[in-house]
Structures are given as structure tokens and as C-alpha cells.
């Protein structure tokens, strides 16, 4: 088979005759190479796609409840433990007297929505970290030892950013009211507390499940903080104000309006809260006093197309950078928006709806020089032996507004506390800033949800609080004192109070 020197001559002779023969027929080595190349590209695509799929989707695939592989994992491992940020157990799996595995929630109702449950479907952190909780990353030696002893392997543990004391405080503030509280850390986006009322006891979830499902009126299972739709009311004036600054960067300071307690445009009329007449107001005092008439007036001057773009940038009707299950807020303005609707939108009424977490994110961005930090609740995952498997770092989503716009809004929100609707927050050792809202949800007067969203300290924001109390009345009267106690609690815990 090898080349033998004696045959070279004959070979060469043969080559010649062949090449002359081939002259009749085209040489098609190139087309063959081309087709090889085509398929090489096709397969590179296939391999790239497969690799990308495997690299990105393992968790989603395991978590899908149609996937029977979860059961397989749970037959090998038992569910890991969920901890608060200071190491308190929020959920763990224990064995009862008959050696059955039971999921135990030591704080009962307190973390019902955010930590969630894992039977009857899943919710909250139990859902978010299901993949890690049911996988075990202990060493091979320990696995072997467990195998010999006939024990299951412990699943990985989840350390959350949740703060038990703040969560308790937030829970107390809401008390018997329906509503939600979100407390986040401004520079990082860590969720420190998230409460939704009414709540339930996840220890009893299997027993109470049917009654929870039957009860349509109070939607106990809904995490109002991320999925609850509320009219934003006057808190939306933050958005309207931002748009006015954008469209009148040099002249917004010169704005002035004389408020008779209402604003009329054609047959449509907007009233100030309780019909109060605010007299002559400028831009800042319109905001601080939450003058509906003035803001309806401002809204009517705005370019509706640009307003629509700003709403997009602020993530209305968009996906939020949030891993928890949430609803997308609704607010729409376009050149086709009729005048009466424009007036409604400007003061956060009408069809506009927002979730508390979204309002909290906008507030955080204002507090953080316009940059939105993605809110997150899981700090790290550790194996049962304490090896860190994954840590979650603070992550910038991007700028929702410019630094200058954020600065102006911070000043205006400080004025709300100092001389506007949130004066119950003034006179503290820290300066707070924020915006109240009293969102009417029935056309009957007096039925309103109390809103507050704000941060402290105003000069160097650390913590952001968003509160909604359903049907309580005005934000200034109900939500602001709650916010004050939460700020107090936060600074007391940090030892700054």
C-alpha cells in the first residue's frame, strides 16, 4: 500500500492520461468542498445552539412543573433550608414522628408570600430557588456515606436578603389592612422586607388550600407587592413631573398656576383632593401639596408622544428586571390619547395601574442618581456543608433618567416631607423624601388607597420604602406614619438612631 519507488514512473504516466481524460469532465472538487463547508456551518450553528440551550436553561427546565425530573431529585435529596440575611431559618424540612418529611415555616404567616410554599405548586423563594433547593452539592464522600446509611442527601441552602425585624415591623404596620409593603436597599437593590396582606400560614397550606382558592374576594394567595394592580394616584405625579422637566428643562422653575380646587377642560373636570383650593402654586409646591388641578394643567401642556416614550423607559407595560413573579404595570399615552384621559393620566387615575414593586423601583432609581439596581431577594446559595455555590451580586439595570433629573426629583420629594403632604415624616434625625398618594378606586368619594413611596436619608439615600394600604384614606394620614416607623426601625437596626 505504501509508495514503492519502482512504481513511481508508471504512476506518473498514469496521472497524465487521467488528467487528459478529466479534461472532458469538469473537476468538481471545489463544489464538494463548498458543500462540506455549508454543512460545517450548519452544524456549527446546531452545536452552538445546543450549547447555549444547555448553558442557560437547565434551571427553567427542571423547575417546569410538567417535568417529572423533580420527583426524581426529591427521591434522592430532601429540600434545603431557606435563611434570612442574619441566619434565621425561614423554611426547613424536618421529619415528623412517622418519619414523613414536612416543610416547616417557623415564622408562619410572616413570610407567607415572599418565602412562599412548595407543595400545591410553588411560590416566592421556594419557587425561585427550587432548582438549588432540590439539588445537593455535598461532596461525593458525604453522598456515599448517606447512601450507605440509607439517608437522603440534604439539598442546598438559600440565604435571602430578607431582614426578620424589618419584615415584622412592616407586618405590624399594615395590621388588619389589606395592602403591601416593600423595603429595599437603595445602593444594591436588595429586598429587605416584602409584606402582602391578607396573608396565610404556609405550614397549613395543604389544609387551607381549597378555602383559599374559593375565596375570590380577597385573593389571599396573590403577592400584592409584586402582582397587585393599584391606581398609582398622586404618586404618579413623579412621572408627570419628570416629563415636564424633560420637556421644559430651562423653564420648569418659572411654572405657576392658580388653583381654585378644580381644573376644567371642556366638559371634563378634575378636582383636588377633598376639593381643597391650593391658591397660587409653582412647580415644586404643586408637587409638594399634590395639587391635582395644577398637574392636570401640566399634563395638558405635555407632548403626548414624548410622554409615551418616557413611560416606556420607566418600564410601564414592559418586563421588569425581577425574578419574582410580577405583573406588568399599565400606563399608556400616545398622540391619540384624548384630552380627558390625558388629564386623568397626569394625576395617576383612569386606566393607569401600577404594582408596588414597580413604584419602588422607580423611587429607588431616583434615589440612586437615576440608575436602577435590579431588585433581588437571594443573596447566595450554599451546599449543606457550607460551600458557596452561587452568589448574587448587585446588578445595574441601567439609567431610567439622567443624574440631573434624579437630583431635581429628589429635591422635590424632600419638599413633600418638609412642607407638603408628608410632613408627618419631618423633624426626624434623618431627612426623608417621598411622595404620597390617595388613589381613588371607586367613583364614590372618600374611598381611596393610601400610598407612600420614598427614601431616606434624602442627601445619601440608603433605604427605600413603598407602602400601599387599601381603602384606608389619604396617604399623608395613613401611609406616611407607617413609613416613618419603618425608617426608624431601619436606622435603629443600623445603630444610627
Amino acid at each position, binding site marked *: 500500500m505504501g509508495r514503492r519507488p519502482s512504481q513511481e514512473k508508471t*504512476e506518473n504516466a498514469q496521472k497524465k492520461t487521467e488528467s487528459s481524460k478529466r479534461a472532458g469532465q469538469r473537476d*468538481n472538487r471545489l463544489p464538494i468542498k463548498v458543500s462540506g463547508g455549508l454543512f460545517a456551518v450548519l452544524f456549527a450553528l*446546531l*452545536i452552538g445552539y445546543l*450549547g447555549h*440551550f444547555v448553558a442557560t436553561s437547565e434551571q427553567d427546565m427542571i423547575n417546569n412543573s410538567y417535568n417529572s425530573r423533580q420527583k426524581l431529585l426529591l427521591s434522592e435529596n430532601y429540600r434545603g433550608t431557606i435563611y434570612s440575611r442574619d441566619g434565621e431559618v425561614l423554611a426547613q424540612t424536618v421529619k415528623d414522628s412517622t418519619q414523613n418529611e414536612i416543610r416547616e415555616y417557623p415564622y408562619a404567616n410572616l413570610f407567607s408570600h415572599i418565602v412562599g410554599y412548595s407543595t400545591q405548586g410553588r411560590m416566592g423563594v421556594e419557587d425561585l430557588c427550587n432548582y438549588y433547593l432540590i439539588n445537593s452539592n455535598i461532596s461525593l464522600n458525604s453522598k456515599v456515606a448517606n447512601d450507605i446509611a440509607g439517608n437522603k442527601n440534604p439539598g442546598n441552602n438559600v440565604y435571602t436578603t430578607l431582614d426578620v425585624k424589618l419584615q415584622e415591623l412592616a407586618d405590624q404596620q399594615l395590621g388588619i389592612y389589606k395592602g403591601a409593603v416593600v423595603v429595599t436597599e437603595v445602593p444594591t437593590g436588595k429586598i429587605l422586607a416584602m409584606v402582602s396582606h391578607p396573608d396565610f400560614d404556609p405550614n397549613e397550606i395543604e389544609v387551607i388550600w381549597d378555602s383559599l382558592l374559593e375565596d375570590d374576594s380577597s385573593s389571599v394567595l396573590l403577592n400584592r407587592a409584586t402582582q397587585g394592580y393599584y391606581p398609582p394616584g398622586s404618586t404618579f405625579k413623579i412621572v408627570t413631573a419628570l416629563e415636564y422637566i424633560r420637556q421644559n428643562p430651562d423653564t420648569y422653575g418659572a411654572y405657576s398656576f392658580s388653583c381654585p380646587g378644580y381644573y376644567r377642560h371642556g366638559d371634563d373636570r378634575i378636582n383636588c383632593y377633598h376639593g381643597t383650593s391650593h391658591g397660587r402654586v409653582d412647580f415644586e409646591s404643586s408637587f409638594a401639596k399634590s395639587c391635582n388641578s395644577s398637574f392636570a394643567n401640566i399634563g395638558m401642556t405635555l407632548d403626548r408622544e414624548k410622554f409615551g416614550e418616557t413611560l416606556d423607559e420607566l418600564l410601564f407595560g414592559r418586563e421588569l428586571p425581577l425574578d419574582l413573579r410580577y405583573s406588568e404595570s399599565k400606563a399608556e399615552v400616545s398622540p391619540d390619547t384624548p384630552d380627558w384621559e390625558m388629564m386623568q393620566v397626569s394625576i395617576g387615575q383612569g386606566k393607569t395601574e401600577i404594582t408596588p414593586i414597580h413604584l419602588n423601583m422607580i423611587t429607588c432609581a431616583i434615589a440612586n442618581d437615576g440608575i436602577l439596581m435590579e431588585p433581588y431577594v437571594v443573596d447566595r446559595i450554599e451546599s449543606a456543608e457550607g460551600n458557596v455555590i452561587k452568589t448574587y451580586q448587585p446588578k445595574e439595570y441601567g439609567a431610567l433618567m439622567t443624574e440631573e433629573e434624579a437630583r431635581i426629583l429628589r429635591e422635590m420629594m424632600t419638599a413633600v416631607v418638609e412642607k407638603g403632604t408628608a410632613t408627618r415624616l419631618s423633624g426626624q434625625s434623618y431627612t426623608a423624601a417621598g411622595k404620597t398618594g390617595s388613589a381613588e378606586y371607586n367613583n364614590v368619594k372618600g374611598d381611596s388607597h393610601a400610598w407612600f413611596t420614598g427614601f431616606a436619608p434624602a442627601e445619601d439615600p440608603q433605604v427605600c420604602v413603598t407602602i400601599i394600604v387599601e381603602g384606608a384614606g389619604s396617604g399623608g394620614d395613613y401611609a406616611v406614619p407607617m413609613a416613618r416607623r419603618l425608617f426608624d426601625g431601619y436606622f435603629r437596626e443600623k445603630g444610627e438612631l
Partner: protein
Amino acid sequence: MQQYIIELSKYGITICMVMYTLLSFLGLFRRDEKMTGFYAAQCVFTFLLQLLCFLHMALVSGNMEYVFFYLFAQVFLLVVAIMVPMIYEDVNRMLLGGMCMLLGVGLCMISRLSFDRAVRQYIIVLISLIISLLIPYMLSRFRFWKKMTWVYGLVGVFVLSAVLILSEVTHGSKITFTITVSVGQVTFQPSEFVKILFVFFLAGALWENASFGRVALTAAVAGLHVIILVLSRDLGSALIFFVGYVFMVFIATGNYLYLLLGAAGGSGAAYMAYRLFAHVQARVLAWRDPWTYLDDQSYAITQSLFAIGGGSWFGRGLLKGTPTDIPYVMEDFIFSSVCEELGAIFGICIIMVSLCLFFVMLKISSQIKDRFYQLIVYGIAIMYIFQVFLTIGGGTKLIPLTGVTLPFISYGGSSVMTSMIMFFIVQGIYMRLRQEGGKRGGKKTVSGKNGKRAEKDRKQ
């Protein structure tokens, strides 16, 4: 101890496969044909891989049946790897080794999924081997291969239409004949075998004359094949035939326009099929939005994705996953079960090895002077690699699902038999090439009777 072996064998399996794949690619770029050590290394990895897989399964299940099956499978692979080169010393070792590797993986995976079927598959593989071994001999013994062009075409069309009209409907595709023999039921998928006839038909029709008239004539016959297959709801085969046709015309004419024309015509025909047939629409719908129709049309594809995603890079380990949740896992989704239990790295290696075999066949075809045989090798290469693309792309949701088998690995007698026959046709032609010494920078000169016969053959 057992636990350690089980965990470690998982990585051992991946390493063997990766090494094998690397060697395959290295082999592509070697000019020297005599690389005994090189092939020996490939063989070692093939056998080591089998050993680890079956050891793993025996340990996990405690079932000794796996050990027996392992022994049988090894005997077979040894026979192929050692005996075949002894019978035919000019056999292409790359092609032979790759086939062994894929057959081995297939037998291992099928035995994991269903032991009874693995035994059936084993028997069919044995029969196929015996048939295949005759092929190189028949290719050189008989002279009439080039004269039968219209027979190939007519028989192909006849068989396909007979199936369409006569056979029962299975899985929504009218693609099988069920013949009841005294031993039991043998299901037989004629479209697989027609592939071979189809390649021979096109090669016969185009090798000496690739004028526009000829191309149009072959287009009519090829179109008939494709239309019958689409009517039989065998979309995967229809596509394979179509792509095979386009590429073979491209090589026969050397005209790039035919590729463009094929792409345009193919897209147009696909769109027409989409508009006309509900079963095509269902496939596309299940592909575009599988999560919405999870319970229904998309059940198979989503289960396949769960399997691949759940397996991650190194797999869950043999017998540790739940691949049987996927419908038709042994036929259409064997790749997903490989990914789940042996890992995505292993799966990617399977893809690369298949691609490598394709390149080997292309290389052979580019060395052949006789246009007829060149077209046959080329056509087989294209049909093989395109089928691999269809089944893996479908199972991973890159393209809509067409339900074709993965050659050598999937369960299915017709599929494995056809694939083996095709590979041995290539082998037979390769041996001719080497015996004629017509190979570029030839290794052997024309000698004796064989050479004269080849010379004569070329003149025909």
C-alpha cells in the same frame, strides 16, 4: 466503592467520547492512510466507553443482564473492527470505526431504555452486517449498476406509492409495512431502503449527461418521490430526498445556480405544504410555541427539552434520568436521551463524529474519477448528514420536528440496516478506488484482472 465507580464512570464516559472525537478530527487531516496505531487508539476508546457504560448500568441496577448484553455487543464490535479489515484489507478504517462507535452507543442506549428491544436491534444489526459484507463484493463483481437507472427510479416510485396506498397508518404517518412472519411481527419502513435506490437513480441519470434537459427529467422523478412522501406524511424523508436531489444535481453540474434554485424551490414548496396540510401546520405550531401547547402537540418536544436541560453538560448518569417520559424516545428522540444521561458534551461529540464521517465520505468522493460512483458516495454523504441534522435539530427545537431516526443510534431495523448498507456501498467504492490505484497520489497501481475490469467499466 460502588458509588465512587458510578460517579466517576460518568466522567470517564465523557472523556472517552471526547478523546475519540478529537482523534477522529485529527484523522481527517492525516494524509498517510496507514495509521494502525491511530485506529487502535480509536478502538480502545470505543471499547473502554462500552465497558464503562455497561459497568455503570450493571452497578446502578444490580441487573446482570447488562453484563451478558455487554459481552454480546462487544463480540459484535470486535468482529466488525477486526474481521472486516481482515476480509477487506482496503476498507476505510475511519468510516468503519465511526460506524462501530455509533452502533455501540446506540446498542448501549437502547438496552438502557428497553432490554427486549435491544436484543431485537442486536439481531437486526447482525443480519445487516452480513448483508453489508456482501456489498463490496457485489459492487466489484457485477457490471450492470450503471445501466439500471430507470429501474431504480421506477421501483422507488412504485414502492413508495404502494406503501401510501396499502399500508396501515402508524403514528399519523403511512410509512410502514407490517409483515407477519411465523416468528412475529416485522415492521418494515420502505422509505429507508428507497433512499439507496434514489441515490443510484440520480447517479445513473446524471453521471454522463448533466444537461438542463436531464436535470429537468430527474427533477420530475425526484419530485414524484417527494410528493408521495409528503402525502404519506413522512416529512422528514421527503426533506432528505429533496436535499439529496438538490446537492447531487449541484455536484453533477457544478452549477451553483442549482443550489440557489433548490433553496428557493424548497422554501416555496415548504410554504405550500404549510398552507395545504394540517399536519405540517401542527408541527410548525408545536415548534414555534411549545410551552403553550405543552399538554398537546408539543408534549414530545417539551419532554425532549426537559431531558436535555436536565442532563446538563455531564448528564445524570445512565439509568438515573427519566428519558422514557419522551414519546418515541428510541426512534426519534434517542439523541435527547443520550444528552440527558450521558450529557450534552457527549451529545456534541456525537454530532462531531457524525460530521467527521460526512467529511470522510466527501473526501472519498472528491478522489473518485468515475462520475457515477462519485455521485453515489456524495449523495449518500449528503443524505446521511442531513438526516442527522434533521433529527438532532428537531429534538433540540432548532427546527420543527420531522420524526426521522438518528442513523446507527436510533432503534429501528430499517433505519440501521439502510445506514449500514449505505456505508458499505461507500466502502465498496472506496475499495475499488484503492484497488484501481486511481486515487490521487495513488497507493497501488493497476494490476491484473481487476484493473482491466475497472478500465473497461470506466469506458462504459
